């Protein structure tokens, strides 16, 4: 077996040193009736050739986004990742290192996390950011828990236009954590409000921008309304590239920003692994969940970085910890940091501009089709259309035309019958004019 270095001779010698008769003898603390004497009924070991063949067979049964005109978004976006990103994150020293608990020999990881925290704070317009969470939805959940800690209140108001998976993830954790969840009514396009649900017992209002349907909104009136009631505003961003074009939540009064960072540096990966971004105000830093990297000096006065404020964390505080989190999304935030370093100020704005441009082109083209109405007046790279037929059926038929044409709202909101004909359409810098034309042609045919 290519990954196992011990030879039979090694094993015999080592058993001699240990003073055991056999390897089985080392398992003598296992109750006999639970110790297997035969192999589990699974295939035997296989070489690289066989493994590659078997997995390629499965991979080939999927339609890769890059192989067709592709307009699927709703919380995960297909962007270009520069070649150097994937090369660098596969360097052994990044890929195969552990959490940087020994800072003297983990400055590489610690410094990029410090750079990552700085980038996230800059993008979101906030003061501080942590070293990442599992993904956007779990970051949003942690934001809600933190808002409850900060305010000492237990009522959480969710905007109806929050991504339904995010809302469900928050609800799942919050209800056993003893929080009450109130959710606004979803509305595609404009008009959804949740601020009327705020009261004096509210810990936070959670609102997504651009929202689930792609709509952009000014968060300032919502943060004012929340602050008046002594609540925090939690802003969720599922398309982080939008912040190259759109006013960041930090400039619209957000107290916590929870975002999905997949769009920068990370592939679609069928939903994971992704990278949750978490940023807030300095005054709340000791209530933050997750790992934090801080600057300090070593015994010789040289600048260096360490994991810090760990007295918040589970390995010190156990059941009194701010969170049970024991992971960040290390390699995914490295990919994020490298990609954003490559983009820089100019590249990031340009990338965002291209996304907006392609989405506007797509919306304008689709609007010309009979049976399509664009519902989203202001958007970044994603918008919602109302079709003359049920969106789920349309998407299936588009697939037969070799177009992956967006996400039917009914897939995520199956109970709201008024949403049956709504389709969420995303475009990115990878969307070409010919993709848009192919989509328009196929959609025209399917709706005819």
């Amino acid at each position, binding site marked *: 077996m290519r990954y196992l270095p011990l030879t039979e001779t090694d094993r015999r010698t080592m058993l001699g040193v240990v003073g055991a008769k056999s390897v089985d003898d080392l398992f003598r603390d296992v109750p006999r009736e639970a110790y297997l004497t035969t192999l589990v009924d699974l295939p035997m070991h*296989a070489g690289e050739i066989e*493994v590659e063949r078997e997995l390629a067979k499965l991979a080939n049964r999927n339609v890769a986004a890059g192989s067709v005109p592709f307009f699927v978004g709703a919380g995960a976006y297909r962007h270009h990742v520069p070649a150097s990103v994937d090369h660098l994150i596969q360097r052994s020293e990044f890929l195969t290192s552990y959490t940087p608990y020994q800072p003297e020999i983990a400055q590489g990881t610690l410094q990029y996390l410090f750079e990552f925290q700085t980038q996230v704070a800059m993008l979101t317009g906030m003061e501080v950011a942590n070293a990442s969470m599992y993904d956007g939805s*779990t970051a949003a959940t942690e934001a809600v828990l933190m808002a409850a800690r900060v305010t000492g209140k237990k009522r959480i108001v969710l905007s109806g236009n929050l991504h339904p998976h995010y809302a469900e993830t928050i609800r799942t954790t919050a209800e056993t954590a003893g929080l009450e969840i109130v959710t606004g009514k979803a509305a595609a396009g404009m008009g959804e409000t949740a601020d009327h649900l705020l009261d004096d017992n509210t810990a936070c209002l959670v609102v997504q921008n651009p929202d689930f349907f792609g709509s952009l*909104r000014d968060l300032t009136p919502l943060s004012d309304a929340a602050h008046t009631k002594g609540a925090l505003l939690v802003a969720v961003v599922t398309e982080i590239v939008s912040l190259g074009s759109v006013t960041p939540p930090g400039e619209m009064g957000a107290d916590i920003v929870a975002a999905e960072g997949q769009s920068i540096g990370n592939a679609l990966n069928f939903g994971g692994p992704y990278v949750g971004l978490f940023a807030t105000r300095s005054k709340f830093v000791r209530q933050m969940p997750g790992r934090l990297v801080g*600057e300090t000096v070593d015994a010789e006065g040289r600048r260096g970085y360490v994991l810090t404020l760990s007295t918040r964390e589970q390995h010190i505080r156990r059941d009194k910890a701010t969170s049970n989190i024991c992971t960040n999304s290390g390699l995914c935030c490295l990919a994020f940091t490298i990609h954003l370093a490559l983009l820089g100020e100019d590249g990031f704005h340009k990338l965002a501009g291209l996304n907006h441009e392609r989405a506007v082109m797509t919306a304008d083209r689709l609007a010309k089709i009979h049976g399509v109405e664009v519902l989203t007046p202001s958007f970044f790279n994603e918008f919602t259309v109302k079709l003359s037929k049920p969106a789920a059926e349309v998407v299936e038929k588009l697939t037969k035309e070799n177009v992956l044409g967006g996400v039917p709202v009914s897939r995520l909101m199956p109970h709201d019958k008024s949403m049956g004909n709504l389709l969420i359409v995303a475009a990115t810098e990878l969307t070409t004019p010919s993709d848009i034309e192919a989509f328009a042609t196929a959609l025209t045919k399917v709706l005819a």
Partner: protein
Amino acid sequence: MMNKQGRSTHGAADEHAHFETISGDRGLDHEEPLIFEIGRLGKCGVDLPEPEIKHDRLGGLRRRGTVGLPGLSEPEVVRHFVRLSRMNYAIDAGLYPLGSCTMKHNPRLNEKMARLPGFADIHPLQPVSTVQGALALIEQLAHWLKLLTNMPAVAMSPKAGAHGEQCGLKAIKAAHKAHGQKRNVILVPESAHGTNPATAALVGFTVEEVPANERGRVDLAALKAKLGPNVAAVMLTNPNTCGLFENDMREIADAVHKAGAYFYCDGANFNAIVGRVRPGDLGIDAMHINLHKTFSTPHGGGGPGAGPVVLSEALAPFAPLPLIVHYDNGFKLIEDDAEAKARDLKPFGRMCAFHGQMGMFVRAMAYMLSHGADGLAQVAGDAVLNANYVLASLKDVMSAPFGQGPCMHEALFDDAFLKDTGVTTLDIAKALIDEGYHPMTMYFPLVVHGAMLIEPTETESKRALDDFIAVMRGLAEKAQGNDKSRFQGAPFLAPRRRLDETAAARKPVLRWTPSAKSTAQAAE
């Protein structure tokens, strides 16, 4: 003195090692500023076309002002991150004996497979008909996990071990609720990982600790005494954090079930028993499996991980969304509560957006297919043999509190052998850095004094173990031989000396800012 490669080993003691270089760099060791300190406005490492937008549709929300990001060309970015990488220790570079962390070799085939466009370039919400191969892979991995644990169901979406714990405890909470039970206590041994009590608290339980006995196992009598109508579950790590198999598992399981509670097992140490012991045969109701430990997906400097949870018959109906079901000759995804209920399932909710850590699933599957049933049993056998070899080779010079019997995949030492030497566990760990090793896990588990927990894993050769053993024996002798100086300031030879963690926590600097001087400059 020469080492076995014939090179001088004077190292730090050599006066030449101390001369100041003009650059501040030292040979291959480069100092590297932050990207914010080397970037310049107007540079860019990505060539993109200029967007042509006459009238934006941003609804008056166009971002005003700059973000503040530095501009760098591609070669500058590549050099920056390559230089940073060289300040890291890594399993590819040397033995990484972190107990409880299972730092084994990460096969590159896994990386190659995860990057196939059919896995990496598919969207979680594209039509299910276009991702049948992805669902088949998840089901295949689920099948392997169920067979290796002899458990009937598995929830695949948790994104890490602690997330898996949360999933398992939520299923337990839902099951009690469904049976009209209001139990709110979780029993956790004092040797447990910190995530166990933290997770129990997050899920709304109260935590009560169970002491260990003199053999490093859970005190069965104390556990039984604590079981009662308020206990929702017992959370146990097996093999435990002392590296020992809890030999009373069956009795514990019976007592727990008799008391109407569930038995949660922290599967962090599954590597010790994979292919040889199935947790389902021990009476477990739920166990998370860290794919980044047992199944070799890379730790990546702290993540991402994956923590699927296997569930017993009693807990299976409460598994969270999404669920994969077979139909005709394909797979269907159940993403909605009502649809699940129509099939008599009672999902407790959703752990995260989308379907879990697909990238990690592919890597783990590549690893499992490579090993097969025979290779996986060999993994556990070699992991346990390697740990016992280390234990047997060191227990005469170090102190092994439970060294009388065999250990499982990791060897636990305490600091009794350092008594009156002035050298601490921390000092030993830092001295190991100077010797070219990552330290072992230290001060964990909490049940022994000054713990040093060594987990070599099965991917170390005998030669690598012999070298490590020689170094540990040498350090133990030097510590006992009153050679304090090499310990107390260690490490001397790493990219950094010991860092001031107190200062970092007292006045946290968590980001670069254009105006503030760095801590180092301010200190000058």
